[in-house]
C-alpha cells in the first residue's frame, strides 16, 4: 500500500502537466511542473484561481444559456490560458478544472501542456493524409484510364481494322495480303495482351496471392526494369517457409513499390537493391537506391510535400511495424520496414 502511494506520488510529480490542488483559495499541493512554472515564469496562483472561479461561476449561473447543458455537465471545464514569457514566445496551455471534494471546496487546476496542441496538430495531419491518399487514388485511376484508352482500346481498335482488311483480302483472293494481315493482327494482339498483364500487375499483383511476397517483388522489379531500363536486384533470404498475414504482405509490397517509384521519379537512381530477409520473429524489407538522396529531416517534418513518406509510415505503424528512412543528399536512400512475425 505504502509503495503504491509512493508510485502515485511519483507519477503526480513527474507528469508533464502542471497540477495545483486548492482548498478555496489556498494552495494545498502542487507537483514539480507546477512549482517550476511558479519559480521560472512567475505564475501567480491567485490569478489562476480567480480566473477559474470566475469561469466556473459563470457556467453555473442561471443566466448562462447553457445551464444544465448535458455536454458541459459531463466535460471538465477547460479554458485556454497563455503565460507571457519575458523575451520569448508566450506559453500556451489549457487550464482544466476538476472538483475533488465539493463539501470542502477542494479542487485541482491542471495546466495541460502542449500535448493538446499536438493532438490538434495530429488531427490536422490525419486529415491531410486522408486527402493525400484520396488524391493518390484518383491519380492512379486517371493513369489507368489513360493507359486503357491509349494502349488497350487503341490496340483492340487496330485489331478490328485488321480483321476488316482480312475480309477484303479474302474477297480479293489475295493470299499474300491475307497472310500479312494475320501476322499484323497477331502482333497487335500480343502487344495488347502484354499491356493488359502489365496493368493487372500494377493494380494488384495476383502473384502476391498465389505465390507470395518474394515472387511478387520479383515480378514488380522485372516490370519496372523493363519500363525504365534501370537495374533492380531482388534478394529474398529465408523466406521460403514464411507465413505472412495478407495485410503485412500487401504493405511490404506497396512500400517496395512506392520506394522504387520514388527512387526512379525523384532520385534518378541507376540501381536499386531490394532485400527481403526473414529473421526469427521478424521480417525486414530494405530498399536501397544509389540516387540523389535528400535531407530526411527536412522532408519528414509535416510540410505537405512528404505525405507519401508519412503514408508509408502510418501503414507500417498500423500493423505494429517500424519504418525508417536514411538518406543524405548525394548518397542515395535506404527505406526499411520491419514487422514482428509469429
Amino acid at each position: 500500500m505504502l509503495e503504491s502511494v509512493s508510485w502515485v506520488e511519483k507519477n503526480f510529480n513527474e507528469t508533464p502537466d502542471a497540477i495545483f490542488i486548492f482548498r478555496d483559495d489556498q494552495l494545498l499541493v502542487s507537483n514539480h511542473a507546477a512549482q517550476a512554472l511558479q519559480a521560472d515564469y512567475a505564475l501567480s496562483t491567485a490569478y489562476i484561481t480567480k480566473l477559474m472561479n470566475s469561469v466556473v461561476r459563470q457556467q453555473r449561473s442561471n443566466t448562462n444559456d447553457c445551464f444544465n447543458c448535458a455536454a458541459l455537465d459531463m466535460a471538465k471545464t477547460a479554458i485556454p490560458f497563455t503565460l507571457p514569457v519575458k523575451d520569448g514566445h508566450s506559453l500556451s496551455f489549457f487550464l482544466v478544472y476538476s472538483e475533488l471534494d465539493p463539501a470542502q471546496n477542494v479542487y485541482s487546476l491542471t495546466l495541460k501542456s502542449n500535448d493538446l496542441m499536438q493532438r490538434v496538430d495530429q488531427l490536422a495531419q490525419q486529415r491531410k493524409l486522408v486527402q493525400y491518399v484520396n488524391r493518390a487514388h484518383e491519380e492512379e485511376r486517371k493513369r489507368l484510364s489513360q493507359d486503357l484508352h491509349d494502349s488497350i482500346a487503341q490496340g483492340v481498335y487496330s485489331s478490328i481494322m485488321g480483321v476488316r482488311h482480312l475480309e477484303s483480302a479474302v474477297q480479293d483472293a489475295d493470299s499474300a495480303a491475307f497472310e500479312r494481315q494475320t501476322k499484323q493482327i497477331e502482333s497487335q494482339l500480343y502487344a495488347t495482351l502484354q499491356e493488359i498483364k502489365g496493368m493487372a500487375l500494377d493494380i494488384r499483383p495476383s502473384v502476391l496471392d498465389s505465390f507470395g511476397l518474394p515472387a511478387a517483388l520479383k515480378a514488380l522489379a522485372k516490370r519496372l526494369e523493363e519500363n525504365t531500363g534501370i537495374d533492380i536486384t531482388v534478394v529474398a533470404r529465408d523466406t521460403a517457409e514464411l507465413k505472412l498475414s495478407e495485410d503485412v504482405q500487401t504493405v511490404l509490397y506497396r512500400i517496395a513499390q512506392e520506394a522504387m517509384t520514388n527512387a526512379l521519379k525523384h532520385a534518378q537512381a541507376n540501381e536499386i537493391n531490394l532485400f527481403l530477409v526473414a529473421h526469427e520473429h521478424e521480417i525486414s524489407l530494405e530498399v536501397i537506391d544509389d540516387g540523389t538522396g535528400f535531407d530526411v529531416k527536412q522532408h519528414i517534418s509535416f510540410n505537405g510535400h512528404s505525405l507519401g513518406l508519412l503514408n508509408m509510415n502510418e501503414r507500417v505503424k498500423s500493423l505494429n511495424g517500424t519504418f525508417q528512412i536514411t538518406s543524405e543528399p548525394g548518397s542515395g536512400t535506404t527505406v526499411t520496414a520491419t514487422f514482428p512475425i509469429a
Partner: protein
Amino acid sequence: MGDEKIAKNIAYHELVRTIHQQEDFDFVGVALQDATSWHKIRWQYAAGNTNQRFRKIILRSGIGIAGLVIRTGEPFAENDLAHHQYAGYMSQPITMIEHLTSAVAVPIFDEDQIVIGVLLAGYRQQQSVTAHSSHVLQEYLQQFQ
C-alpha cells in the same frame, strides 16, 4: 545465329553509327520486335548512348513516342519531352535514361510493309527536331532497305 541474322545485326549497327556520325544527333537508336512468340519490342542498337540501360527496356505499344510510332506507323517528333503528355520514366524511358530533350522517331517496316520497329534520334541540349529530321531518318532507312 544464322548468317542472315548476323548480316542484319551488322547492318543495323552500321546504320545507327552512320546516322550518329553524319548527322548532329546526340543519340540514335533502333528498337525491333522479337521474333519470339511474345513479339516484344526492345532497343537493340544504339549510338551516342551514355550507358547500356536501353537494352533492358521493353516498349509499350501505343505509349510514349516510340510506342505511338509502332502503333500508328507514322513518324513522330517532339521538342519538349519534359512536358510531353507522356513525360515520365514509365512512358518514355529511352528519353529519360539518355537525357534527351527532343526526339524524332520513324517506323521501320519489313518487306510486307508491317511495322517491325522504330528508328529514333534525339538531342540533349534543347536543339529542335523538325519534319525535315524525320525525312532525313526515312532516307537513311530507304537506303538501308
